């Protein structure tokens, strides 16, 4: 196993310093996850706002460090990386952000985001090679260099801007791309092409992709595996079709049932209860217990472990304590499916 990134029992809290009267907010609570380089997959991190999905992504991106637990980059402790390793890490992890306009410095032309990484990482030896690289990358995401280069970001459409960001990632050829809601601010008609180019990065170039979203339909379309987060915990994870089409954890069930289906014959059930404990961090036990329709005594006492339900799925829920074993290795990636074999890639 060659793990590109590995998080071991990582917890990240915000606030709650020595002078603060409020308890810290636990954004990510005891998550173990690795990103494997040899089997590049597309992994979705799904959840509502405040579920910790973006914090988990920022941990993987190295922009924040864990409060507890450890983080390794190619087997080395992330907090003690050498200069060279830090530099390599910088190049090997790239991100695509939600707001395709904010990713551009309004002061510069679009070329700036494509040329800077080539210059800084010395990806091309001559000016000629640089231009060819840029043109090839743009062609791969379906853009004409003439339509995009030499323009200011506001002169491009949202879809074009986001595709240029994918082209940028393509130039750098990182090992891991974090796509944080890359299509939520793009017109619906352009989403498919952007998601498709992200999928090509994975399938054709072998880049691992972490796709952060609250939109489970696109998650199902492009990813192999999914983590469903609720208040910092990964309540359910595994193969994407299994989790979305047959959710096991009551929260995942509520989440999927609440997606408004455009079908007048398939209406919502009763109104679900709202969360009762706002300061959930001081709470013991399962974080969903206050809203769970199947709540049991044990749920309020102890945080549920990761029950290994089937080959490619785990859920943190006591409903399955009789039928399933607790995962031996807490690393969520150990139960991920590798779809490349079946897809013949």
């Amino acid at each position, binding site marked *: 196993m060659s793990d590109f990134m590995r998080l071991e029992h990582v917890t990240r809290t915000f606030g709650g310093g020595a002078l603060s009267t409020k308890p810290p907010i636990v954004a990510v609570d005891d998550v173990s996850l690795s990103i494997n380089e040899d089997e590049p997959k597309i992994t979705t991190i799904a959840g509502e706002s405040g579920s910790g999905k973006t914090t988990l992504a920022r941990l993987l991106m190295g922009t924040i460090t864990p409060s507890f637990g450890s983080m390794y980059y190619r087997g080395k402790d992330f907090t003690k990386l050498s200069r060279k390793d830090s530099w390599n890490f*910088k190049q090997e992890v790239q991100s695509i952000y939600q707001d395709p306009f904010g990713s551009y410095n309004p002061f510069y032309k679009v070329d700036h985001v494509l040329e800077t990484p080539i210059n800084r990482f010395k990806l091309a030896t001559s000016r000629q090679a640089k231009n060819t690289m840029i043109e090839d990358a743009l062609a791969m995401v379906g853009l004409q260099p003439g339509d995009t280069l030499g323009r200011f970001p506001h002169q491009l459409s949202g879809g074009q801007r986001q595709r240029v960001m994918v082209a940028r990632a393509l130039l750098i050829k990182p090992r891991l791309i974090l796509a944080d809601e890359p299509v939520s601010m793009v017109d619906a008609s352009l989403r498919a092409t952007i998601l498709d180019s992200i999928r090509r990065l994975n399938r054709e170039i072998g880049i691992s992709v972490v796709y952060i979203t609250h939109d489970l339909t696109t998650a199902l379309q492009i990813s192999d595996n999914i983590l469903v987060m609720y208040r910092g915990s990964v309540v359910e994870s595994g193969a994407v079709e299994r989790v979305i089409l047959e959710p096991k954890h009551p929260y995942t069930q509520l989440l999927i049932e609440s997606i408004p289906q455009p079908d007048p014959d398939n209406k919502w059930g009763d109104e679900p209860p709202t969360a009762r404990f706002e300061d959930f961090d001081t709470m013991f036990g399962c974080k969903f217990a206050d809203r769970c329709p199947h709540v049991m005594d044990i749920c309020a006492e102890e945080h549920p472990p990761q029950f290994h339900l089937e080959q490619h799925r785990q859920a943190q829920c006591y409903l399955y304590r009789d039928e399933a074993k607790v995962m031996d290795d807490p690393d969520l990636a150990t139960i991920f499916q590798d779809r490349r074999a079946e897809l013949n890639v």
Partner: protein
Amino acid sequence: MARVASARNLTMRTRVRLARRRFGVFYQERIEPIFSYGRRNPSLIVGLGMLGALLFFTVIGMLVYGRTEPHIAGRAQDSRLDAYVSGGAPVQDKRLPPSWCTWCEDIVELEADEKPSLFQYPMGTDTQSRDLFATNLRGIPLTLGTGLIAGLLSVGIGTITAFVAAYYRGVPDVLIRLLTDVGISIPGLLILIIIRIQLGTELVWWQLGAGLAAVGWVFSSRTVRSQVLVLREQPYVEIARQSGMSGLAIIFREMMPNLIPYITASFVASVAGSILASIGLEALGLGDFSSPSLGMTVYWVIQFGAITLGMWWWWLFPLVFIVIIFVSLFLISAGLDEWSNPRLRRQA
């Protein structure tokens, strides 16, 4: 390679044409928007125009007045401008109203041969026979200069500290924030008065400017820091970091260009504040007594009771210049505010 070789073989004419075209593109992309923006932002244009007119008036006045005039007070080498500092107009101990003011009554009886010509003393003279036109001409650049020095230093120190604090965070941030918070809550004028009294010496204009910057940078630092905090959270800053740019490169290439409006606005505000403070200090008698700055004129006006003496020309003209300076700076800063406020800007 081919392109470079061919570029060497170009004729002069083609080169000129190419350069012209390049300038044309540059003009269209960078210069023309400035003009079209000016039409939408009249306060900036009016403010700059007022300040420009004041400077123009001063420069022209100094050129005209700066010529050596041998007849003045028998000091052949002095220009009329310098006559102020060295001790007065030819008519000793006479308080003259502006000489074009034919309806003004002379405060002191003049002999027939002492009658000044029509534009000899356009702003009259004071009780010590100083030519007030020369005084004001010298005073305007001195006062503006004090403000400029203070503004440049404040913004310079403010920007550097703001970047150190907001970009690198940590201990320097805490220290700088503590310093600025304390600096903002304690009145700077008070500190300056104490320093001035302790020093005992008179401060010349640039020293006064530097002193004002020493207490005024905290405001610039505060403004710029908040903007750096906003900018460093922008996705493009993170993208730049992921593109391998170093911290300094990110500060200068990614953040600085977008901060220029804020820094400029902060600079203008700082100049205005420093001028106000300098006039205040000078009016209190803490300025340079040999300096003819506008603030010192105000001091003399108070000292000699110009208002009770009915010498309106003594206080009115410096007051008009001070008002022009403040109104123009206010208009400029209002205009820059519109420029630097992205929400207003996008609408425009």
